């Protein structure tokens, strides 16, 4: 395994160096807020969740094994926390996930957290992605977010989800097929999925 500077920092923190943990969360804060935002689509709530994640990581230092990459350790805690948050049911009922679902009409979507500098097109795209993520089952959603937005390779996602690489391949593929269908209004693709 290549050297992991984050793991070195976390080990230093385990030995009592509080500044090492500060460097870790300064390094990962933005990515962690973005990750949580993909689950709750609310900036303030995403920040709270990201803080929760760092507190959990802090408290979990005793459980950390240096053989694991820090990033997979961090995202495992974050994934579990975000999914638990979703299961609390404060973010609305999920739409049907059946293949009969029509691609989302972007004109019918209202954006959330839309800043004034975003274009109408960008807001529609954000809203469509939100609907897409909400319709995915938990494990597909997590794998998709980790692969598409966090850029994690399949083997790291497998470690985060505690599953096999082939299972991740299947999860990411199915989610991407659903994405292709849901985002077709933005791609100009009028064709239906031919094969499955």
């Amino acid at each position, binding site marked *: 395994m290549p050297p992991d500077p984050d793991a070195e920092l976390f080990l230093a923190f*385990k*030995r*009592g160096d*509080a500044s090492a*943990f500060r460097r870790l969360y300064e390094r990962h804060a933005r990515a962690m807020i973005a990750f949580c935002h993909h689950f709750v689509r609310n900036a303030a709530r995403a*920040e709270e969740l990201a803080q929760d994640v760092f507190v959990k990581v802090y408290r979990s230092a005793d459980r950390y094994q240096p053989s694991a990459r820090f990033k997979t350790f961090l995202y495992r805690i974050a994934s579990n926390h975000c999914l638990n948050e979703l299961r609390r049911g404060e973010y609305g009922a999920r739409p049907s996930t059946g293949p009969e679902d029509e691609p989302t009409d972007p004109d019918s979507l209202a954006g959330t957290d839309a800043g004034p500098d975003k274009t109408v097109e960008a807001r529609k795209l954000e809203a469509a992605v939100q609907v897409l993520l909400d319709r995915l089952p938990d494990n597909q959603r997590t794998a998709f977010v980790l692969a598409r937005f966090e850029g994690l390779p399949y083997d790291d996602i497998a470690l985060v989800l505690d599953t096999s690489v082939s299972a991740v391949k299947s999860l*990411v593929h199915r989610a*991407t*097929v659903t994405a292709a269908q849901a985002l077709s209004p933005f791609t100009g693709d009028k064709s239906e999925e*031919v094969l499955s």
Partner: protein
Amino acid sequence: MRHPIADLTALVDGALAPARAEEVEHHLASCETCRTEKERLLAALHVLARLPPSPEPSPFFLARLEARLRDEPLPEQGGILSRLAARWRIAVPVGALAAVAAAALLVVRVRAAHEQEFARNLPLFEDYEVVANLDTLNSPEDAVIAANLDAIEPAGVKR
């Protein structure tokens, strides 16, 4: 070769083993259906790349996080037991003192109860001691009588 649809996403992600990637590419060269599906998946990924960036952290994010971490003990202070002990560092000595005091009180009360019982039955014990000192417990019957001295009523006493 069957349509390798399930491998197309991994192919565009560069996550297929080289030998398998070569097989799939070979199939794509002759299969328009699979090429179309691959383009459809790629188009979706290009759309995702157009998403606006996630919101910036608020200026207070780090300050709030630091405030939450301020009360957390460092891992150097030990494992979970030590941390629990640290969290309950006031409650533990108080609890221990209370337990010691309760045990001492119990001992005193038990001892006092024994002494009161002894005092209440002092004549009986004296009688038993006299009998024992007379060296008269020679038979099982004598032992039974000695053991039941308290049940023996003085002569002439009627219930």
